[in-house]
């Protein structure tokens, strides 16, 4: 099991808020920015959070 620190959990909660919550404006909205599909963008940000978790685990292991 991946052990989450408080810092990891806070980051993941915030990323979840930014990418999955809030008002969704559709219709006229372009759901991509600068050619980056939102799904890719979401993964990119979440990966950043996961990297933090992995680094924290490495620190604990060493």
């Amino acid at each position, binding site marked *: *099991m*991946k*052990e*989450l620190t*408080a810092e990891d*959990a*806070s980051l993941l*909660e*915030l*990323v*979840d*808020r*930014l*990418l*999955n*919550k*809030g*008002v*969704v*404006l*559709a*219709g*006229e*909205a*372009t*759901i*991509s*920015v*600068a*050619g*980056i599909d*939102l799904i890719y*963008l*979401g993964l*990119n*940000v979440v990966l*950043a959070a996961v990297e933090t978790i992995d680094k924290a685990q490495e620190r604990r292991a060493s």
Partner: protein
Amino acid sequence: MTLLAHAIAAAPPAPLSHEGLRGRPLAWSEAGDLGLWSTEWAPDIKLERPDALEHHRLVERICAAQPCLPVRFGTAFASSDDARASLDKRAAALHAALARVAGKSEIALTLLWREAPEERTIPSTPAGPGRRYMEGRRAEFAVRETRRARAASMVESLITELAIERQLVWHETCTSDSVAVSLAVLVPTERAPERKADLERLAAQFTDVFAVLNGPWPPYTFARTD
């Protein structure tokens, strides 16, 4: 030029500094008595990871200046006219959502299991591999269900003890092996520190999890209009 959306607010706009994401101009697109705060963006600039956190800080700044609805990060409009048209289409729902979150903030509580899920011992029987596989699956399922029930009971206990309306609480349980509960509460902004302390005290009663509290944040979870 595109507009990278941050938050929706009622007109007139609060007097904010004109600095948006990465120091680019912050724009206000008004449609009737609503408006959209956004950053004037260039289509050739790619969004980077730090932009998400800067968007969060911008939304915090806007929400501190006037009641607002955070817009999901990454939403962009080709022009101010497009942004205005999008607001016009959903004006009634946006007004209702704004009224719901005005003067309120979100407190986030995450409960993390202290221990990895206990591994059930499968009785050693002379059964074949198929039977052993099924016994293993049944044991895993039993552990998961026990944890789900425990997480649900913690949520019920928190809502009861907080004496808060259920529509002001959002929660998910067991979203990963580590997370028991992810919960958000919409509270009056001036009472946010007090309610955060209440949540911390209540969560400390649970011995099998540790609590991570965040916020007050802009009301991301409660800004939905659907």
